[in-house]
Every structure is written in C-alpha cells, then in structure tokens.
C-alpha cells in the first residue's frame, strides 16, 4: 500500500509526465498536452476563485435592500468583473482547456494533440488575456456589465479599463479559436487504428462540436472588440450614435458570438455527463448516435438564435418572431440528450461516487435551467422578465448547475488519471451535497425575485425582496463552503491520497489503458480503438489494482 506517500517523494510518479523534465522552464515551455492542461487547470481555478470573491461581495452587499457594503459604483464594477471573469476566464475555457487538453489525445490514442506548439501558444494567449482582465482592476475597473454595450461603454469619460478588457477578450478569444482548431484536427486525423467516428467517446463528439463553434463564432467577437477598441479611440461612428453609429448593431455583433458561446460552455459539460453516467451506471450509453448527432445539431442551431438576447433592444418585429421560434427549436437536441442519459441509468447498477453525484445534480439543475429558458425564449413572457433576476437565475442554473457541476464531475472522474492519486470519497461526497444544496438555496429565490420584478444589475432593491435576497446570500455561503471543501479534498489527495490504478472506475475508453498518471508519450504500446462503452470483461481486481479486462474477453 502506498497511500499517505508524498507526491514529491522519489518513486511516487517515476516515469510519468510529471517527472519528464524538471524545473520551471520545462513546464512553461512544455509541448506536452498534459502539462499544458494542468497549467490551464491551475489558472482557471484561480480565475474561478477570483470570480467567486466578486460574487460574494455582491451577495453580502445585497443582504440589505439599501446595500451599504460598497458604493453603487463599486457594486457596478463588481458585477461587471464577476461576469467577465467567470464567463471568459472560467466557463468558456474551463472544460476544453483544462480537461480537454489532458484527455483528448489519450482518448483518441495519440501521443499529443495535432499542433502542440499551437497549444502552448493558446495557453500563453490565455494568460495574457487573463492578465489584462486583472489589470482592469488596477486602473479602476469596469462598470458596464460584462456585455459592454455602447454607447455607455465607449464614451470618452470611461477610463482605460474598457480598452484593457477589450484587448483581454481579444487575446482570450484567439486562444479559444486555436484550441478549437487543435481539437477538431486531432479528432479527425489522430485516431488510433480501428477507431471509427462512431467509436469515439462522446466527450470527443462534444469537443468536436465545441470546436466548430470556437472556430466560426469567436472571430466575430474578435472583430467586435477590435471595432469597439477603435471606436473608443478614433470615434469611427460604427456603434456610437453621436458619431453616426448604431448601438443595436453592436448587440447583433456581440450576441452572434455570445450566444453560441453558451454552447461552447455546455457542450463539453454534456460530454462529461455522457462519460460519467455510463461508467457509473455500469451500462453502455443509450442512444449513442443520437447524443453524438445532437451535439452537432446544438452547435449548428445555436448560431441561429442570438437575437433572443435582443427582444427589447429595438430589434425589428420580424427578427423577434424568427429568433423566438428558432430558440424554442434549440431545446430539442438538449432534451434528446437528457432522455438518453436517463435511459442509460434505467436498470443500470448505479455507483454513487462523487462524479455521479455531480452528474445527478446536473440532471436536476440543468433541467430546470433549460426549462426556464423557454420562458425567456417566448416573446410575450420575455418582455416582463428581461433584465430581472429571473434571467440571472436562469443562466446561473445552466452555467453553474450545468457547466461548473459537470466540470467538478469531470475533474473528480479524471483526477486519478491526471495526478495518480485517489481523492477521498467521503470528502468528495460531502462537498457535492453541499454544493447542490447551496446552489439551489442561492438561486431558486432569484427566480421568484425576478418574477416579482426585482431588476438585475442594481445596487439596491425594493424592500419587499429582502427575504428572498437574504435566503440567497445564505445559500451562497453554503455553496462557497462546498466549493472550498471540494477544492481542499482534491489538493489534500496530492499528499495523502491512495495511489491510483490505471482504471479505478472500470471505464472502457482508451485513456484508462494508460498509466495513472501517464508517461510522457501516453501509451507504452500504440493502442487500437475499441468500443468506449463496452464494459464486458472488465472486472474489479482490487481497490489498489483497479479494474482490468480478463484475458480474451471484451473488445
């Protein structure tokens, strides 16, 4: 038994990618997708904490209807940066860059992604983008809301913060485009022999669909922020009415990316759910082709609905009707996935380990989030709900309850593979339950506050909403506690966790045939593709040795 062994002790990870080259330079200039994934993971976790700090300022400030914790101006800066940091630096890049980078080559059976140097460039672009966001804090912050609508955001009296933020977004966006190029190319061209398109793990289908959006949508964000930057400096007259421009045009430009961006956020999360639900139900995924194709469908239909963010902006009536109809359509492929996941669980042998607890949370929370989107997609109900806390609750349900929770599921699921350590299951479960409870107590009241008319992005509110806001703040404290415990549990495992076997969960996709953690080149013997959800022949040898296929059985 080697539990309790220090990760840094010699022999703990001998021969693994963690030992291949030492020193800071071997990490900062690495071409190894696994190290790049770990570096992304660390940076993204820091950004999550930063975004969370801003959130707690907001929730404590909203304890009282008249505010009082911070000035109105600081409050505006807090919600702007909470949104911007969370969206651009955590939810969009999180799963693809931190988990995807590590897992994609392992799942296809390759030594690395298609373009390792481009991968490193993606990372450093992301670092630069994140640094610029942090820099906005130093120069006085940004108070425009993360959606940076002109004319307010581009007025000359706004400080330097907007220019830094626009540049940060541009760099982070470029990073995202290059990641998409890398993943699509890797999945197309570097699959192990025998691995056809319909032998791919669904996580890869999800990242492929995500890559389509990253490549085709993000450039529009790039040109939007570039135009905003130049408009602010040179008064070009594209968006600013006082120079002859059109501010609604900005919204078209902005949302053409930012709506597909939410599918960049959720598709990888759904990919993780597919993996975990199958393994922890001990059953092949139900409706594999439907789930795979629905990922592509979501990516494509997602490009057609951006105007549902603009129903009250001055957009034409025709546009409103068309976008509303198409928005209701995009719910269909998501629903197909949910039904297939539930069918996977039906008559399965459910294993309630931490990743599965998060996935069960996902079903409940994402389900509600998706359903509340229908109210917002329907024109008549959107008009009174627009810019209220109903919207805030809806997107937190899908982004936190969907993406963050799936991210935690994936992080725990692949933690043994990435670090060679087993996290403590009890700590993991406690954290998962606290997060589920804390999340719901935080955000369910916000649906009611929104329906009652409480507007978003206001530092104060009518006294009648006080009860709901206080419940929400208490929930946020519980949610924070859960996240801290989850993080602590994972970090503690690096010192105290049991040594992880190659296949601790009895999964069938290729990454579980590599060592935990993998060697620099991933596989000792070049692998052949096999059915990723075929568990026949997999037997639990022991807790320490994990699962293995009996000789001659299974694919």
């Amino acid at each position, binding site marked *: 038994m080697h539990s309790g062994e220090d990760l840094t002790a010699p022999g703990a990870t001998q021969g693994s990618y963690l030992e291949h080259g030492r020193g800071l330079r071997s990490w900062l200039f690495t071409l190894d997708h696994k190290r790049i994934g770990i570096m992304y993971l660390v940076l993204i976790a820091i950004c999550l904490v930063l975004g969370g700090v801003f959130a707690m300022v907001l929730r404590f400030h909203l304890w009282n209807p008249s505010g009082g914790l911070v000035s109105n101006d600081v409050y505006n800066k807090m919600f702007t940066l909470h949104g911007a940091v969370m969206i651009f630096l955590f939810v969009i890049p999180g799963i693809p860059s931190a988990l995807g980078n590590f897992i994609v080559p392992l799942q296809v059976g390759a030594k690395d992604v298609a373009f390792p140097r481009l991968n490193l460039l993606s990372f450093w672009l992301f670092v630069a983008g994140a640094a610029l966001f942090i820099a906005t804090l130093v120069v006085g912050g940004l108070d425009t809301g993360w959606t940076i609508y002109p004319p307010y955001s581009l007025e000359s009296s706004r400080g330097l913060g907007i220019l830094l933020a626009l540049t940060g977004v541009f760099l982070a966006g470029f990073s995202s485009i290059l990641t998409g190029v890398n993943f699509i190319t890797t999945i197309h061209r570097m699959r192990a022999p025998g691995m056809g398109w319909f032998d791919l793990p669904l996580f890869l289908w999800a990242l492929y669909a995500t890559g389509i959006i990253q490549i085709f949508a993000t450039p529009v964000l790039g040109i939007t922020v570039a135009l905003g930057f130049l408009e602010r400096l040179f008064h070009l007259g594209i968006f600013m009415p006082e120079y002859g421009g059109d501010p609604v045009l900005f919204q*078209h430009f902005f949302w053409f990316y930012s709506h597909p961006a939410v599918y960049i956020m959720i598709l990888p999360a759904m990919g993780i759910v597919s993996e975990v639900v199958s393994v922890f139900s001990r059953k092949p995924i139900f409706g594999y082709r439907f789930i795979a194709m629905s990922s592509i469908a979501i990516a494509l239909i997602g490009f057609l609905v951006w105007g549902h963010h603009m129903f009250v902006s001055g957009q034409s009536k025709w546009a409103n009707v068309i976008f509303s109809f198409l928005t209701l359509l995009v719910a269909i492929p998501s629903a197909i996935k949910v039904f297939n996941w539930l069918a996977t669980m039906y008559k399965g042998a459910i294993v309630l380990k931490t990743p599965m607890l998060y996935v069960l949370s996902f079903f409940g929370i994402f389900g509600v989030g998706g359903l509340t989107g229908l109210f917002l997609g329907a024109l008549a109900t959107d008009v009174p709900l627009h810019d209220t806390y109903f919207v805030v609750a809806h997107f937190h349900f899908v982004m936190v309850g969907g993406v963050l929770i799936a991210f935690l599921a994936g992080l725990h699921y692949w933690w043994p593979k990435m670090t060679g350590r087993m996290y403590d299951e009890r700590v993991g479960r406690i954290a998962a339950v606290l997060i589920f409870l804390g999340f719901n107590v935080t955000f369910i009241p916000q649906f009611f506050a929104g329906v009652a008319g409480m507007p978003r992005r206001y530092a104060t509110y009518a006294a009648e909403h006080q009860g709901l806001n206080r419940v929400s703040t208490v929930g946020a404290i519980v949610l924070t506690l859960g996240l801290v415990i989850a993080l602590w549990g994972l970090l503690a495992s690096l010192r105290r966790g049991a040594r992880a076997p190659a296949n601790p969960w009895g999964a069938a996709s290729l990454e579980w045939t590599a060592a935990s953690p993998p060697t620099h080149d991933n596989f000792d013997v070049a692998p052949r593709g096999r059915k990723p959800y075929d568990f026949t022949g997999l037997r639990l040898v022991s807790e320490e040795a994990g699962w293995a296929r009996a000789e001659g059985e299974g694919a």
Partner: protein
Amino acid sequence: MSDQATSGLTPSEVLPAPARFLAHHFSSMEAQSETSKLGIWLFLGSEVLFFSGLFTAYGVYRANHYSLFRYAHHFLDWRMGALNTVVLVTSSLSAAWSVRCAQLGQRRGLNATLFLTLLLAGAFLVVKYFEYSHKLHNGIAWGAACHPSEHILDTLPPAVRAVPVPSDLGTFFSIYYLMTGLHGIHVLVGMGLYVWLLARAGRGDFGPGYYVPVDTVALYWHLVDMIWIFLFPLFYLI
C-alpha cells in the same frame, strides 16, 4: 519556371530527410502534411468569419445610407484598385506556382516564385500607401475627422462635385479604412511569412518529401487575395 530536371542537385538536396521535420507524434510525413492542411483550412474558416463582421458593417451602412456610398466611392481611384487586383492575382499565381516548384524539387523555381510573391505583396502595399497618403493629406480621415479639402473635391466628376458634401462622409471612410486596413495588415503578415519561407528555401529545407509550409502559407495568401476580390468592387466600383 519550366519543367527542368533537377540537375546539379544531389538527391539529399532535392529530398531533405523527412525525419528532420517529422514531429514525434505523427506516424508519417503524409499524416503530418494532411493534418497541417486541415489545420490551416480551419484557421482560414475563422478568418472568413473575422472579416464577415466588417462586411456586415459595410452592408448595414450601405443599405441604410445608400446615397452616401454612391457619392463617396468617387473618391476612390478605380485604376489604383484595378492595379492592385492585378498585382494580387499575379501574386496568387506565383504562390500557387511556388507550391508546384517545391513539389517537383525545382529549387531555383521555388526561390523565384517565393520572391516574386513577396515582391508583388510589397507592390500592393506601395500602391496602398499612395492611396492612403493622398487621402490623408487631403483631410479624408475616418469618422468625425473626415474633412475633404477643396483640392480633392475638385478631382471629383462635375456631377458629383456639384452635390454638397454629406455630413456622414466619415462613416463611409471609417469602413473603408477598417476593411482595407485590416486587409493590409494581413498582407503585411503574409510578407513576413514569405520572408520566412525564402529563408528556409535558401537552406534547402523544401522538396518533394517536405513542402507543407509552402503549401499552407500559399493557402493563407490565396485567402488574402479572395478578400481583396470582394473589397475591390465593393469600394471602388459600385
């Protein structure tokens, strides 16, 4: 640029050892080449969407300020635009030919076509420089800073000269400078890439066994040409 035999060069000069440029995670040079091409095509797809924002701005403003656009395009000299079109089409020809030379191991042809592409790209930017400086010296800047001088107004056709200068002339020129400027930046980047290719070609890196950088840079260059194919009529002709 004819089909001469690669006489005078040793086989290793014609075909540098592919292993030298084969990355460790690819099983063969062909796998690496096909993968690189897929990668560049995906990137070019993103470039199309990047420019689409500006084409949208053009379309929106033209549709809603139709007479402004009909008026303002007279400030642009269609002969300079046509010249630049000829320059870029020829440079695309030489870029495509450079791929052929690399594929056939024609080192002299490769160097000549790479150099010609670079030269023509430079010529494009020289013409652009003359266009821009003429406008800027005559007060034609972007947005609110657009104040055409009497001198340049006098160069307009009489029927156009008689019309009062629209107050939103600057909006047209904002879009003009944005689109031709972004395109010009892409030309400049292309020149840098061709300098890099020339340096590598000079070292004898390219031949039938390995020419994917020549191919991928040429693909980028053809996209730059394609963008101009649309910019030319949209600004200079209609």
